[in-house]
């Protein structure tokens, strides 16, 4: 008995797929509703998705290399998951709020978070890297699954602010949290599902099932397909081909609309594959077969979108070359600017404790500044002495 095999068969059956791996659009009955949601996407939109996916892949490759060169402490690769991330990211409205885990480089790309800022945490210069309010994207969360609770809480706030179900598309707001198949086993995620369901929170649980929780296969995480995980909590679920950018877009658009209109939470399982290692500290050759990696390589999400663009005559060599050039300059910029990153001032830790001025924090800050000044003075004195 092989649980993987039975899951695999179920995966094929229930999967929402709009574009087949060879780039042709599918025509099955079950996906018809989703097909309509992606129907308005024209050449410009598809090319924008392609560009985001290519830039995300290059960001990923360059960051991995920089880690190997000692410039980053750690880096979690997202290779293979670009369609799930970029597709779902393109369905977001500006006012929607995202709570990522730590592998959502594609979502951050779509939301416009600066590539160098994305790496600050992995270089160890800062715990965050950007102001969440700038792009409506919360910081990378390395504690497994806790962001699902943050997202649910934030969604309850959105609900209480009256930003759900007003009928105004500029106002109605959804919250999205990204997590993985491994995190789905966390208590936090299950608690978030409970609270989201009973409060009808406007939140989308976007679970990228990349098949491997570090070295544990999905069969060791769940006995039922993950998209059914929400059912017991009272949350509808859908399984989408996470290597199909159009399907990821369409499924996410539906889930976001449900949230914004007061329909409550949705559990999306994006069925995809982590083509790289869990992080740069991991060696997947120790626990999975090369044959499996090769099989998934045939379903590379970027190749699939390229095939679609070519099949529908939306491809242009000059444009594609320009995207490659943009990727090259992105890589070059990363290499240069990352090395130039400076540590933030140590007093910056006092800046975001409270939203408004706080006398106790101010006093601590003043004491700390005086202390730093004195120790710096001492060091200067002692080095002068040493020089003598």
């Amino acid at each position, binding site marked *: 008995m092989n649980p993987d095999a039975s899951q695999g068969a179920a995966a094929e059956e229930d999967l929402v797929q709009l574009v087949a791996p060879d780039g042709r659009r599918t025509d099955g009955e079950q996906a018809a509703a989703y097909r309509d949601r992606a129907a308005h996407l024209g050449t410009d939109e598809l090319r924008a998705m392609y560009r985001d996916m290519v830039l995300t892949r290059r960001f990923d490759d360059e960051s991995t290399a920089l880690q190997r060169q000692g410039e980053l402490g750690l880096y979690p690769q997202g290779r293979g998951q670009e369609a799930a991330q970029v597709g779902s990211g393109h369905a977001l409205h500006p006012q929607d709020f995202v709570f990522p885990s730590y592998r959502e480089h594609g979502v951050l790309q779509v939301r416009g978070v600066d590539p160098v800022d994305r790496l600050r945490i992995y270089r160890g210069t800062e715990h965050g890297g950007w102001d969440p309010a700038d792009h409506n994207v919360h910081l990378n969360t390395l504690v497994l699954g806790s962001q699902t609770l943050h997202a649910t809480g934030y969604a309850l706030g959105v609900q209480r602010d009256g930003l759900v179900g007003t009928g105004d598309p500029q106002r109605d707001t959804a919250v999205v949290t990204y997590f993985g198949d491994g995190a789905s086993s966390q208590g936090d995620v299950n608690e978030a599902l409970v609270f989201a369901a009973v409060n009808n929170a406007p939140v989308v649980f976007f679970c990228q099932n990349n098949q491997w929780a570090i070295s544990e296969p999905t069969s060791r995480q769940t006995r039922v397909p993950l998209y059914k995980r929400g059912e017991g909590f009272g949350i509808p679920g859908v399984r989408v081909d996470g290597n199909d950018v159009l399907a990821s877009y369409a499924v996410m658009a539906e889930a976001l609309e449900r949230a914004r209109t007061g329909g409550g939470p949705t559990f999306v399982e994006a069925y995809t594959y982590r083509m790289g290692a869990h992080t740069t500290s991991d*060696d997947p050759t120790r626990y999975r077969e090369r044959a499996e990696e090769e099989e998934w390589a045939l379903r590379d999400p970027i190749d699939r979108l390229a095939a679609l663009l070519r099949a529908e005559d939306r491809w242009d060599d000059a444009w594609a070359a320009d995207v490659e050039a943009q990727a090259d300059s992105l890589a070059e910029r990363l290499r240069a600017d990352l*090395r130039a990153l400076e540590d933030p001032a140590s007093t910056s830790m006092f800046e975001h404790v409270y939203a408004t001025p706080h006398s106790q924090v101010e006093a601590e800050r003043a004491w700390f500044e005086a202390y730093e000044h004195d120790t710096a003075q001492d060091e200067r004195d002692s080095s002068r002495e040493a020089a003598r």
Partner: protein
Amino acid sequence: MSTQRFPLPDVGEGLTEAEIVEWKVAVGDTVAVNDVIVEIETAKSLVELPSPFAGTVVALLAEEGTTVDVGTPIIEVGSADASASEPAPSGAPASPGDSSGGSTNGEGSGSVLVGYGTGDAAAGSRRRRRRAEEPAAPATAASKPAPAPAPAPAPSSAPERTPGIAKPMMSVPAAVDGAGAASSGTTPAGRIRVLAKPPVRKLAKDLGVDLASVQPTGPGGIVTREDVVARADAAEPRTLATYPDDDQPWLASGSVTNDGRQTRVPVKSVRKRTAEVMVASAFTAPHVTVFRTVDVTRTMKLVEKLKADRDFADVRVTPLLIAAKAALLAIKRHPEINASWDDEAREIVYKHYVNLGIAAATPRGLVVPNVKDAHRHELLPLARALAELTATARAGRTSPADMSDGTFTITNVGVFGIDTGTPILNPGEAGILAFGAIRQQPWVHKGKVKPRWVTQLALSFDHRLVDGELGSRFLSDVARVLEDPAHGLVWG
């Protein structure tokens, strides 16, 4: 031309060292940013490192097969572009013998050649030391005046050499591995840089000859065309040592001697660790081994019974399983043997748990994973744990955690048809039990000679903390359980 050095990065969160497995580039190669330059093996994985620089490889600073500390420069890349993004890390002025003055020394800077430059050995070791210091204390190096060329200790050497040709600095690679690494405690300074003219280098490359392996005869230790051809000819009989269809994995990564009659293989990974721990164990713990021959006919009957038992249908029941249980019962009766000698603290550490190690021969070599908290297991879960442990070991997936913190070990030499042996203790443990082959032998049973299943047990123990009495009583108890497993009821 400016040069840049790439210090070995920590590629896995808190690693302190890595082994250089294979260089993918050679001196003189042109590299681009992110070209793979070297494969390293860390405690966690095999990792390929991409070059952070573009330029020409000036020097490989660490030998394949050596273990290098994180932060030690491993490669030096010369950049044609003077405005390279990172300056060379050391501000020390180029001093005689320092290889970084690339433009004057050219490709020939530094050399390590078999049997050469004995008179320069002092200079060589000084240079090695200075290099090791550089990353840590560049200021010190800079503040000292650059040392003058060493007064030549051997009259034959330095004066007659032209300045453009650097002196041979070090001895053979073996010496680098041994003396260099041992004395400095850090990395040996250098990949050998061989002196040879470009056409000779090309010839060597075409013939597949590693320049470092060539005995040079040219002036100043230069490898000549003739030397390369001679080496290539000498290399011809290489195939004598191995035959194409032979499956001889132990010869992998070795190099065949010139006469083709021997293969020398660098000692690495599991082999290296096994050697280290065995030497440490054999020469710190005074070993005593006691033996006992035992009639295990009843154990064999029990094994047959359990095999037919429905509960045990999905596990392999073997005499080793009963032996493991017997050892656990004996440890329960003599917990003093489940202990460890802490030399530093001058303390004996008694363990209130048994992590039962099983020595396993695997394709990668000998590994000793242990069943955690084996004392808590009933027979069935113990059987499962043993099966899982051996399966993991055979698949080569035993993790360091699986092997750490063992408290007692069993080695099943019987599977190789061997009667008994004098096993060496797994370091940190006070006892190891060898389980011999089980054969039918004539045996006096109830006053008559009968064919019975008989085996031999051997127990080696650390005489620092286990005396002969304890060791003997322990082994007798193991034997008694195997003789009559009903004792398991009495003592369980």
